């Protein structure tokens, strides 16, 4: 079971969280063409390596936040509050 570094609560067991998918996906503008909406709803990258993704700490602070995870090793490279910068080392502040 992975330890997920919640930016507010610290590292917690994965069972406290819900996975939210690719953090890089942005909802298109309301008047965007249908193809943009198709991409938004159905098309996802499946990278072999670091992926920025959303997690929700439903059994804790109920915050959504961003985690950079290596999909090959499950190593978590960074974590940040929604809208924050992912450049920080997650172990620096939350453990």
């Amino acid at each position, binding site marked *: 079971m992975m330890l997920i570094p919640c930016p507010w609560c610290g590292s917690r067991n994965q069972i406290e969280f819900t996975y939210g998918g690719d953090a890089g996906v942005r909802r298109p503008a309301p008047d965007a063409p249908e193809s943009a909406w198709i991409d938004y709803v159905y098309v996802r990258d499946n990278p072999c390596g670091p992926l920025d993704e959303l997690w929700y700490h439903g059994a804790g602070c109920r915050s959504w936040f961003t985690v950079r995870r290596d999909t090959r090793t499950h190593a978590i490279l960074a974590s940040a509050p929604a*809208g924050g910068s992912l450049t920080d080392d997650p172990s620096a502040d939350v453990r």
Partner: protein
Amino acid sequence: MTQTWRLAEGGSAIDRTHPLGFVYDGRRYEGYAGDTLASALLANGVHLVARSFKYHRPRGIVTAGVEEPSALVQLGVGARSEPNTRATTLELHDGLVAASQNCWPSVRFDAGALANALSPLLPAGFYYKTFKWPPTPKAWLRYEHYIRSAAGMGRAALAPDPDRYEHQYAHCDVLVIGGGVAGLAAARRAAQTGARVIVCQQSPRFGGAAIEGDATIEARPAPQWIAETIATLASHPDVRLLPRTTAYGYYDDDLVGAVERVTEDGATTDGMLPRQRMWMVRAKAVVLASGAIERAIAYGNNDLPGTLLARAVFTYVRRYGVRLGTRAVVFTNNDSAYEAALALHESGLEVKAIVDARRDGEVTCAGAALARSAGLRIRAASVIACAHGRQRVARVDVVTRNGGDVSTLDCDLVAVSGGYSPAVHLFSQARGTLHYDPTSASFLPDASPMAIVAAGAVNGHGNVERAIANAVAAADAALARAGIANRSSSSAVPGDDDRLRVDSLWAVPPVRGAKCFVDLQNDVTVADVAVANREGYQAVEHLKRYTTLGMGTDQGKTSNVIGLALMSERLGVSLAQVGTTTFRPPYTPVTLGALPGAASGAHVEPTRYSAMHAWHAEQGTRFVNAGLWKRPHSYPRPGESEDDAAAREARNVRANVGVVDVSTLGKIELQGRDVAEFLNRLYINRFDNLTVGRCRYGVMLREDGIVRDDGTTSRLDDTHYLMTTTTANAVAIMQTIERLLQIDWPELAVYATSVTEQWAAAALSGPKSREVLAQLVDIDVTNDAFPFLAVTICNLRTSTGSLPARLFRMSYSGELAYEIHVPSSRGRAMWEAVLDAGAPFGIMPYGTEAMNTLRVEKGHVVIGAEIDGRTTAGDLGMERLVNPNKWCIGKPLLARPALNAPDRWQLVGLTAMRGAHIPRGAKLVADPDHALPNPMLGHVTSFCDSPHAGASIALALLSSGRARRGETLWAVSPLADAKIEVTIGPSVFVDPEGTRLRG
């Protein structure tokens, strides 16, 4: 007379003052406290204990530990019966009952042994080659039935497991896996720094292989050193010693799963202790001191009972005081078997020969010198070519390695050593890499990216003192990794190389007519490996799956490396290039009950109760599950059936007034400047123009345009709304709202709070509901003052005083109706006040069944039935709700052609003709007698016997449904063997104009 094969003295584990009785295959035997089932059977001369998986060949006890491939027994009876239990680790207790498995009628006379006679017809891949014709799925299904019933070993219990299991989370700085001398030394080192240490040892006693050895550790005899070290560890408050605990899996972020067998010895401690305890240990660093497992050498009939691994022979003699036979032959390719030979000699057996595969000049160890001085005969550069015997080995043919000089030795015991395989399983699970070491003919740990450090014999150390030095270095590395102390030293131990030197003899050249087994549990032979090679299954993972090598419950602990080596020889490449198959958890089998722990039965999920639950229960109602909630089905009167009760309750709502508990609906408070804008984006219809004091039905879509949820949202104040969701989606919608507000639209000033649990709610419904309400509240509830879809705050008159409440005029039943919300703590007071006020008007409580009848009559859709993850608002007849002048989630993709096709399945109502009953889940067809598959035009989503319509009615989704109104179709259900003619009509059966609810 029992235990005739027990030595007169000796046996470090057994307590001869505590005899224990047990039953094996219906016969009573006696053993001693401290025995395993295997050692007790051997002390009674029982060697034949099993029949093999495929050929039903007689099998005996091979090892003395978790790696046992053959001696698997059915333990216990009835609900506690457990298959495939290793006799070699099963601690004997008084009254233990076990039986051999995979044999009929008995292990001595097994009809399945016919398979052995047919074995030339059953090569590797037999099933794949044989059962592929004719190439149709049906043919395979027919074969599969027979193959499945022939496969398997023990039988699972059919009754629920009566035992209790529990989970325990633990955290530590250093987790030491393995309580042999290396593990104890590492733990002692770590404990000296004050670190929190957990040591788990799979067997009952710490000390491992050294307990019976003659080694000297730190100038003390090994047993004394072990006892002193355990005492030292036990004196540290932050050290936890866990015997009988197997670390079975290594998971992400250094989480180790371990199972502790708490009361498996049968000591029933008044039921307060669980049978097993699952430990989930989150360690900052792990020292893996898991030791090494001996393996065999393949030769003809190497599976005969009486054939044991040399280390197991030593263990049974020294630890359990068992006399294993009368005449023994020892067969080895390394030095380690000599201590077994000497132990046998000391225990009074005649050791006929030590057959050593190495050349005479290579047999130079101290053990060999002792053996020679004891008069034992060493036959160097020789091998056992073949063993003979029926249900026990009787003699062996010994040849020189160049194939000459055949001689036959009579014996009833063969002790074999083919070298050791370090137990690298958890290291490999921790993504550690391995390298092949030709000297010890074994795979040794390299490095892992995780916080695991290998120590002792798992690193190939064969000398106790040097294994301890290695373990101390490993402990230092682990402490550094855990951030406890920074005195990391090199794990390389100075001094001479102490690796066990093993001649790479894996299998003896085959003898005609005698099978050479690689994997005893799955009956994989040397010839099977050759077949796999010949047919192209050469990669290790292919070899494994084609031959089933290492796929038994023992996971090939004594056999995998032999199979890999044989493949490498045939391919002409090094074993290093062949590599190993992937090691996966669990290391040893885990009882299923330990995995959920206490989370079984009613404790799988939490149960949610409404504030009025106790009142419902007092009526004797039956509760139905609605997600995690318990809801009352109906309130039958004495002598009344549930169906009759629900029909009476539904009729009473239409005629008088009823009240139903609707506390389970999801309730979310939304406050802030931008709530109106937020709701506009969330719902297909507008909420910004909702006036304060009014509520409105809303529909929410998924991002792809399909309907997700519905509910009523009220505007309590300019910037304060109360949203209700369906019971089923309450949690998910809240999660979505959090995500939208935190990630997508952080600029919106909206604050969302789930208040589902905080409010108890009742719906008061029926033509007399206004009269009841007028008795109850302190406001004017006339139609003008409180019209349809009005919302207000009021006070309820209850027996205990005035109670503030939220009052809503909304209707699910189609009748004049209200919802009353009060704080949960006052739910029951509110409920009883409503019933008291309603008594003069004939009020009755109604349950979910009547509620469903009423909503089907009114044509209201629900999640899971009509809102089934495929329907659009248009399919449900709600296309007019989609506001054309604003954007909302899901709207951009609503215009896709397929979502607007003319043959979409649309919501319709069905009425059964001629008094028939529409069956649950029926499909709609034009011709009920059409040849199968009968083209499906739609299906029934909800149904009821409608008191209002006086007929069986249903809601259905039907292709081009609205255009088919007035047509007749058939509702067919092969499961219910029903064909019912139905007429298609509108989905609303009662008051389509809505005059009742607005009146």
